[in-house]
């Protein structure tokens, strides 16, 4: 990326993007889902820069969330699910932090989180749904009324049950407060040199999360000419003017998958599960994979060529057929 092609100065290193756009105490949302397209390069940079007291708002989250929680960057979390499928049915550091009480947790469902991001994106105060009537998702609040009073980023109520005002049958609906994160972290396959984002495969809630956030950082596998993305605009996901920072990070979602580029890395995820189990071995993991690998290039050198080739996606399937996933 030459300076001449970047008049708005959007293209930068992960170090600069996190330094400029992620602050202590921010309400942060991260894109992807469990084992896919987690913005791992950005998460590792947040840990290296020692961000503290972050408030995460996520739906079903896995590796990036667990790493940020384990590294002590997160004070509270609004979450629907913490797990990476068969590799860690419940995220390991998340579980420990929730059980020890050091992480304040408030639970919602995936659809509820989706609607909350959508409300934020549409600049609406709330959205209705039917999910969770009579459940503890509504009855049990993770954050106390006092904290909600004190903390400007929290809605006064977790959720409100009311009657449909358009009918006369007393139909009950759940109202969910909007989420407007300070910053969204997204990993995409392609970003144009104007900042246009193209996500391949499933978009999960990335689009709603990015539109709801005040600032958006996108890391990507490839930066391509905007003209190339404009040849097929139906395929594009987010407009360039929503994006504040673009970070080129090949394999930036590793050890999670990035459709058409690479599969999840079963060996790394199994190793992570073992090392995350104890505080000391987890510190060793952070040292080796985060602190001693200060940028994406040195991280990938640490992963090694043979593992990167092993998980490389087949261009027809989009994943690595026959990959040993035990």
């Amino acid at each position, binding site marked *: 990326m030459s300076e001449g092609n970047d008049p708005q100065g959007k293209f930068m290193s992960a170090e600069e993007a996190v330094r400029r756009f992620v602050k202590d105490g921010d309400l942060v949302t991260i894109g992807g889902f469990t084992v896919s397209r987690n913005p791992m390069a950005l998460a590792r940079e947040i840990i290296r820069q020692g961000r503290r007291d972050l408030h995460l708002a996520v739906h079903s989250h896995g590796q990036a969330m667990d790493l940020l929680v384990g590294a002590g960057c997160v004070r509270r979390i609004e979450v629907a699910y*913490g797990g990476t499928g068969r590799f860690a049915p419940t995220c390991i550091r998340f579980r420990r932090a929730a059980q020890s009480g050091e992480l304040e947790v408030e639970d919602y469902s995936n659809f509820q989180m989706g609607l909350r991001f959508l409300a934020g994106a549409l600049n609406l105060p709330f959205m209705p749904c*039917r999910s969770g009537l009579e459940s503890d998702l509504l009855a049990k609040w993770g954050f106390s009324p006092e904290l909600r009073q004190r903390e400007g980023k929290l809605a006064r109520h977790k959720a409100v049950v009311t009657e449909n005002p358009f009918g006369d049958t007393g139909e009950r609906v759940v109202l969910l407060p909007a989420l407007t994160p300070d910053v969204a972290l997204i990993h995409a396959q392609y970003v144009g040199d104007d900042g246009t984002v193209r996500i391949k495969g499933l978009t999960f809630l990335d689009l709603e999360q990015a539109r709801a956030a005040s600032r958006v950082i996108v890391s990507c596998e490839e930066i391509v000419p905007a003209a190339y993305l404009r040849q097929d605009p139906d395929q594009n996901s987010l407009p360039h003017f929503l994006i504040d920072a673009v970070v080129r990070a090949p394999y930036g979602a590793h050890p999670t998958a990035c459709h058409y580029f690479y599969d999840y890395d079963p060996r790394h995820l199994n190793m992570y599960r073992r090392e995350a189990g104890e505080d000391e071995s987890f510190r060793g993991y952070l040292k080796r994979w985060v602190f001693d690998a200060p940028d994406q290039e040195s991280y990938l050198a640490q992963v090694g060529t043979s593992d990167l080739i092993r998980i490389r996606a087949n261009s027809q399937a989009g994943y690595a057929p026959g990959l040993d996933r035990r």
Partner: protein
Amino acid sequence: MPPAYTNKEMMALAAGRLVDNGDILFAGTGLSMLAATVAKRIHAPAATVFFETGGIDPALAELPLAVADPRVMSGSCLNSGLLDAFSLLAHRRLRTISFLGAAQIDAYGNINTTCLGDYHRPRVRFPGSGGACDAMSQAFAVILFMQHDKQRFVEKLDYLTSPGWLSGGDSREKAGFQRGGPRAVVTNLGVMKFDETTRRMYLHQLYPGVSAQEVADNTGFEMDLTRASQAEPPSEAELKALREDVDPQRLILGPAAE
């Protein structure tokens, strides 16, 4: 000599048999992935599978290990996102069947996937709702997977993550749900269903070699055992499809039978 098989194989097949040709299946991870895939391979080729992440009708040439596995994005009729998937789940015209697992279940099929102990300082934290509460709230029907023991089949849940038949009778309808509710619970001992009127769980089928007393001994609440029949053991064709086609690496099936 009938073929040997494992509990997990029996569970995947018992759940798969509850799928009708033409059903729209909302699949989760683990056994539900096997049940949906094996049903499609054997008796319900026109059943369609979709995932809460937005992967609609994927080829499933390989078994996905998570609902965000890139294998749910490959050869699909459409790749979208969560809000699209939930609009199909809740669609009034579609008979969507959801598969879910849980840490705890009560006699009315309400489930807990959140925690044991106090919510604010849990003894054991589980992953949380994910899309489970949404499926239990809005799908046409739900099939649940459980390990059958007293710690999991409980009188009272530590946390009610996802609403089943609530307190039974017409309580689900009164709460505001327009449809849905759990249809069956598939365990390592047999298949439970819910009474049409009281909505309380009863024993519907026992697997070969399992006694009703075993079910009672492993259930933490009163369950009607009088309506139980015997489940058919797995056929050669079912086991062949499951082992050779659906999960050849035994990623979810685990160790083979002796």
